[in-house]
């Protein structure tokens, strides 16, 4: 795909549309050249700080007319090179679009601009007695970023992922047309669901500028349990039994002692127990203490029947902080334990999680890389990290490619998929093709072509 470079005239046009909010050259901070993981690199020709849907529409019109590529960026917390301007062009920075437009307490929705951070949305809902259910680990991501990757997070077991919580979106097509997809309605059987198609499309189909999100009255009580098992296999094999029990936990997380030790070092704070090498962390919520305790005790008993060494109760804010702060720091902690890392956000059927983690240990030995992992055991989504640990560039690339190939091949064999929540971006494209095959990718490209015939939106990503 051949694109035009921005001319002086284009820059002036942008500047006249959005005075003082168009940056170029060295005035663009280098942070915009890469995302959180830093595996992909690209320098945007201009960075445009948009404040409204209309701003986005006017920029898109110009880009479409002039055939200039556009990459949308929220907080830049992505991990697969999705929001990186690998073809130069315009980078749309939505991070100042932070307005809460409407809280509709009768329909239980909140409508926000796409640059609002997840933590800001959570705080707003909390303040008004509500909860936005998806809970991805990166709280400084924007809601637009979450929508672009269909982010999941820890509460997916009970409440689903971002797609389950988005009722409607306002999006700008590559031509600059402003569209509203979906509505506040609960049911929808009205033709193809274009809203759901745009969710998870990683900025390749349209630019999401506003979202109407489903909220629920905030559960009054929550309690977590930390369950040590003598082995990872014992821990993970208990998960399907937990899911089968007549109790729905909010979260079911797996963590191993080695990753906990990284978090301790990173946070400079001890974890409350070192009873074992393998733990499950489960949360239950509800509106009465009795109901939540009943759920907790049902699963605690089940864990003990399945050879758990003990069950530790996390029932206050302080206890919750001591455990969940470590869980929340895993990514940064592993990052801090090495000079460079890459990640595999594979998702496999719940019944195969233990086998897959054991397989990563085998790959680590075979390839000669340290591969720590943790994951959402309740939904089969694992976060597996390949650590460079001082290897020479060439050797690192070669071992990394081999490890990825082995792991994605195994995931395919057992019915898994490339990404549970981080997306495909630039980095995971070869594995998507390998996993889904040419025909499915062709269908995806066909959809892309309908939305974006000139291919200017986030070119080179996903498909």
């Amino acid at each position, binding site marked *: 795909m051949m694109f035009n470079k921005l001319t002086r005239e284009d820059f002036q046009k942008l500047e006249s549309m959005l005075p003082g909010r168009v940056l170029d050259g060295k005035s663009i*901070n280098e942070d915009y050249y890469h995302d959180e993981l830093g595996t992909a690199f690209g320098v945007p020709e201009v960075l445009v700080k948009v404040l409204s849907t209309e701003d986005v529409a006017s920029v898109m019109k110009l880009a479409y007319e002039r055939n200039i590529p556009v990459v949308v960026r929220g907080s830049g917390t992505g991990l697969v090179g999705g929001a990186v301007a690998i073809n130069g062009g315009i980078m749309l920075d939505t991070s100042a679009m932070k307005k809460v437009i409407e809280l509709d307490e009768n329909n239980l929705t909140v409508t926000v601009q796409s640059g609002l951070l997840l933590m800001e949305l959570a705080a707003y809902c909390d303040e008004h007695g509500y909860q936005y259910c998806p809970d991805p680990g990166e709280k400084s991501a924007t809601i637009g970023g979450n929508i672009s990757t269909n982010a999941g997070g820890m509460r997916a077991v009970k409440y689903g992922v971002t797609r389950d919580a988005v009722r409607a979106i306002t999006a700008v097509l590559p031509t600059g047309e402003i569209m509203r997809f979906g509505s506040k309605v609960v049911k929808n059987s009205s033709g193809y669901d274009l809203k759901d198609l745009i969710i998870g499309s990683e900025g390749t189909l349209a630019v999401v500028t506003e979202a109407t999100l489903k909220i629920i009255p905030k559960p*009054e*009580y929550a309690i977590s*349990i*930390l369950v040590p098992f003598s082995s990872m296999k014992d821990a993970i094999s208990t998960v399907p039994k937990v899911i089968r029990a007549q109790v729905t936990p909010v979260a079911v997380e797996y963590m191993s002692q080695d990753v906990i030790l990284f978090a301790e070092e990173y946070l400079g*704070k*001890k*974890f*409350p*127990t070192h009873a074992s090498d393998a733990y499950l962390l489960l949360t239950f919520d509800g509106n009465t*203490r009795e109901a939540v305790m009943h759920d907790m*005790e049902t699963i*605690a008993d089940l864990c*003990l029947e399945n050879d758990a060494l*003990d*069950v*530790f*109760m*996390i*029932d*206050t*804010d*302080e*206890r919750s902080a*001591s*455990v969940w702060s470590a869980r929340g720091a895993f990514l940064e902690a592993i990052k801090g334990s090495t000079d460079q890392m890459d990640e595999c956000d594979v998702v496999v059927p719940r019944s195969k999680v233990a086998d897959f983690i054991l397989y990563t240990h085998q790959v680590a030995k075979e390839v000669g890389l340290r591969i720590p992992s943790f994951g959402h055991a309740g939904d089969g989504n694992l976060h597996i990290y390949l650590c460079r640990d001082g290897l020479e560039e060439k050797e690192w690339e070669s071992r990394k490619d081999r490890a990825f190939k082995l792991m994605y091949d195994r995931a395919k064999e057992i019915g898994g998929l490339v990404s549970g929540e981080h997306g495909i971006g630039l980095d995971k494209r070869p594995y998507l093709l390998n996993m889904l095959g040419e025909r499915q990718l062709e269908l995806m490209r066909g959809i892309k072509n309908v939305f974006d015939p000139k291919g200017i939106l986030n070119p080179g990503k996903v498909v």
Partner: protein
Amino acid sequence: MNILVCVKQVPGSSNVQVDEKTGLLIRPKKGNKLNPYDLYAIEASLELREKTGGAVKILTMGPPQAAEALEECLWMGCDEGFLITDRAFGGADVLATSYTISQGIRRTGSVDLIVCGKQTTDGDTAQVGAETAEHLGIPHLSNVTKILSVDKGWVTVEANQENMIVKESLRMPCLICMDSEINTPRLPSYRRKKALDGSLIHSLTLNDLEDKDSTHYGLKGSPTQVQKVFPPEKSTSRVMVEGSSEELAQKLNDLLADRKFI
């Protein structure tokens, strides 16, 4: 070695609101919990027991439901609990509370070391520990950050005294108040919860204490008169700074320096 930890049951939310018109506490929906500052004292005591052997007993004063706080300590690994409870103890100020606790401690058997938290999240006076020791006539030290050693009837500790860290040896029996954030308190065990019945918790009423004069306890024994309760003022003023990374760093430095934080 016998260690006794004094604990308190407090409102479940540390951010208790006060009704501005009536001055009454708005009870949070979360119920009650063990005073978070006491958790550090329990952890330090359990770690000490692991080294020296012996027992960790816990004691609290409060209404009958305060036994829940003791149960939680047992689930964390403590050995035995004492609940000082009697209508006569209601409405106690710091003086009457510490006197009641000191009387209760005399009924818990032999004690070498009494350990308290730094303060409570509801009263926040940080005085009960020291006053209890005064009633018992034993040495005491606050803001203890580490228990270094126990040897021949002496305990050596490190304490954070505002501008310096001091190392002190106290002859036992003595009382120490542990600082906060000095360890990561262990979590209560569901396995222990299931295994224990209520037999490890003993109630102490006025009749069980040495001093049975009810005028020394509760409201009658409290010289403090509360005139008014009101919420603390909260400042929500914010300063927004803009600029490049270098400019922001400089402005932040200047702001902190102006306010004498650095």
